């Protein structure tokens, strides 16, 4: 009797294993876009290279473990160049879904090039792996087909900044704030959030200049003159890396002095901005402290130090700087790896379920991965920091807010 039962169990096991092996695809197709040229190339290529680095490491190990088939399966990256054009990106996202029939759809970096992917993915019922598209309007309760992986949603990015201005600001003498922003989903949302946080704080801090400019703006001289006329105690410039480079260059060249200057990218892409502007122009500039600047404790994947070493070894001559975006691409890979190791099938909503089950538990070099019910990333927060040139003429970032993670005091007004 026992022998018969054992034989039957063995047969069932073998049959199931055979069925699983037969259904297992030869490769998992990841479909993504990158921008090798145009306005978003400098934020897209590091993300793409980071993702590729992760994928090549996995393939060198024989593939990624896929729970649905209980085996390692090699990864294949289907990647197209959208050249920073949303029109091209829209066509290529469709191509990835309908022609290439990718298993997993990953958007290009940044909110502008992700914005066109959101409705396309939803229409095709494809779960969009949104790497760094942080526009708050991408995430709604009625759309289960998106999750933001490696960047906090724009509406919470400026929380530490606004808290600093409204809590530490008044004692320092900060009462009047100027906000200049690029009108896109990423920085437009941040500007709205700053306005909201400051208004709700009832701290007496008021916004005395509030103007949006097209994302393509490369000249700020007149705007700086207008901001100066408003006599602000703090100037917040919310834009992409090329905007920050042009803005800070114009500040330096115009001889304008603001008591507090905040920009998004000096912390995020420090290498790039330092190359363009020099350390003097970045001295005392307030900025976000991204994961490329903080060594978070990890429970999965490489640490920041290990990853940085790996990146510089692999891409020594690639002319793509190491920074927050390079961390983001690798983080996308790590989250995908964990998702595939958790999901019981490659069905899109099962991938979503698996990914959401990681929320709050997965700790990578990018911080704690945590999603809200709409798929917006709320874990990998961005503290406020200030860049300071040290005695060896090197830029270092001092975290000034929240107080719990602060590594120093803010220097205000800017000397």
């Amino acid at each position, binding site marked *: 009797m026992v022998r018969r039962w054992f034989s039957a169990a063995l047969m069932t096991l073998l049959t199931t294993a055979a069925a699983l092996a037969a259904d297992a695809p030869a490769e998992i197709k990841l479909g993504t876009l990158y921008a090798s040229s145009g306005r978003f*190339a400098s934020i897209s290529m590091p993300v793409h290279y980071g993702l590729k680095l992760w994928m090549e490491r996995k393939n060198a190990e024989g593939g990624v473990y896929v729970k649905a088939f209980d085996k390692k399966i090699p990864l294949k990256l289907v990647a197209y160049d959208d*050249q920073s054009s949303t029109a091209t990106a829209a066509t290529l996202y469709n191509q990835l879904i309908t022609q290439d029939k990718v298993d997993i759809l990953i958007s290009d970096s940044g909110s502008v090039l992700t914005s066109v992917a959101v409705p396309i993915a939803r229409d095709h019922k494809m779960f969009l792996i949104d790497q760094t598209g942080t526009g708050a309007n991408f995430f709604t309760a009625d759309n289960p087909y998106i999750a933001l992986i490696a960047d906090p949603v724009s509406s919470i990015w400026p929380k530490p900044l606004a808290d600093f201005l409204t809590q530490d600001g008044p004692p320092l003498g900060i009462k009047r704030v100027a906000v200049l922003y690029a009108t896109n989903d990423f920085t437009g949302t941040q500007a709205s959030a700053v306005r909201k946080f400051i208004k709700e704080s009832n701290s007496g801090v008021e916004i005395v200049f509030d103007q949006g400019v097209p994302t393509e703006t490369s000249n700020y001289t007149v705007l700086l003159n207008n901001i100066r006329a408003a006599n602000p105690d703090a100037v917040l410039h919310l834009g992409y890396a090329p905007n920050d480079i042009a*803005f800070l260059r114009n500040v330096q060249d115009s001889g304008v002095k603001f008591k507090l200057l905040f920009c998004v990218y000096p912390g995020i892409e420090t290498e790039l901005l330092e190359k363009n502007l020099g350390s003097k122009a970045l001295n005392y500039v307030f900025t976000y402290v991204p994961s490329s600047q903080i060594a978070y404790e990890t429970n999965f994947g490489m640490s920041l130090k290990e990853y940085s070493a790996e990146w510089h070894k692999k891409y020594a001559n690639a002319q793509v700087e190491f920074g927050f975006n390079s961390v983001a691409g690798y983080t996308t890979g790590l989250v995908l790896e964990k998702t595939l190791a958790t999901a019981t099938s490659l069905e899109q909503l099962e991938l979503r379920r698996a990914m959401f089950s990681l929320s709050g538990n997965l700790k990578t070099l990018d911080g704690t991965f945590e999603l809200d019910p709409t798929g917006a990333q709320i874990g990998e927060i961005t503290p406020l920091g200030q860049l300071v040139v040290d005695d060896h003429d090197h830029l270092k970032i001092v975290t000034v807010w929240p107080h719990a993670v602060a590594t120093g005091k803010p220097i205000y007004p800017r000397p």
Partner: protein
Amino acid sequence: MLLYSVLAGVLFGLYFSLIGLGLNLVFGVMRIVNLAHGDFLMLGAFLAFWLFALFAVNPIPVLPIAFAVFVAVGLPLYYLLVPRLLKAKDPEMLSFILFFGLSQVIEAVTTIAFGTSERSIPGDQLGRAVAAVEGVFIGHEVENGPVEILGQTFPAAWVASGIASGCAVLLVYLYLYRTRLGYLTRAVMDNREEAVATGINVHRISALAFGIGIGLAAIAGVFAPFMLGSITPAMGGEVTVTAFAVIIIGSLGNPLGTVLGGVIYGVSYMLMQSYYSSWANLLPYVLLIAILLVRPSGLLGRQVRRA
């Protein structure tokens, strides 16, 4: 605020006059549209960046180097591309396609060489040159920094760029109106067939105009890191479109019209930035449409464009 915007607009507009000048010269002489014009500007910018990064060369001495190098590149490029193009039934239209292709090739090759990231030259490099020149005129040392004009301060780089643009316009004007080659160039601009009939070597004249055109683009490129924030291999397309709008506003084929178009564009852009900043980038296209509807030949153009 108004005075500052107007003065800044004049300086900014002069820079765009410089960009448009070469494009207009090429169109005026050959009736072809060089859609790779912005890419030659970008190459000039990378030449300045490269010389600064490797040898710490100040951008001012790079100006004659860039001009000479690009004129030298332009001459053979003309003979390679343009004579065949001019034999076609509709060279003006075909020039769009050919130079668009050239633009793509230049961008791709530059991307391979320099990568996609933004590059720049520190702003005080031009400031030093301006301070040195100012010092010579005033008779004592001048501090490197912004320059004051009518009580308003502007980046030294803007003033340097404005002066260089003014000089370039003057030199092109002198070339066209005070030299024998200039007379011949104007003859070709006026009527290519008649110029051929009178024995003018139109290809030689056109090649020179083509070389000077991209040489002027390269000079504008040297100022690009200072005027446009930073440079990337992909910047050419946007620059060409704006330059094209500037020369249409002024009038196709007329160098003085380019100056007028540039200044109108610059002043309007700065006023828009001051009062309706979100819409500022629409301006070149709005001006373009308005001019085409009201005065298709441009502000200084003839009633019917020769093309």
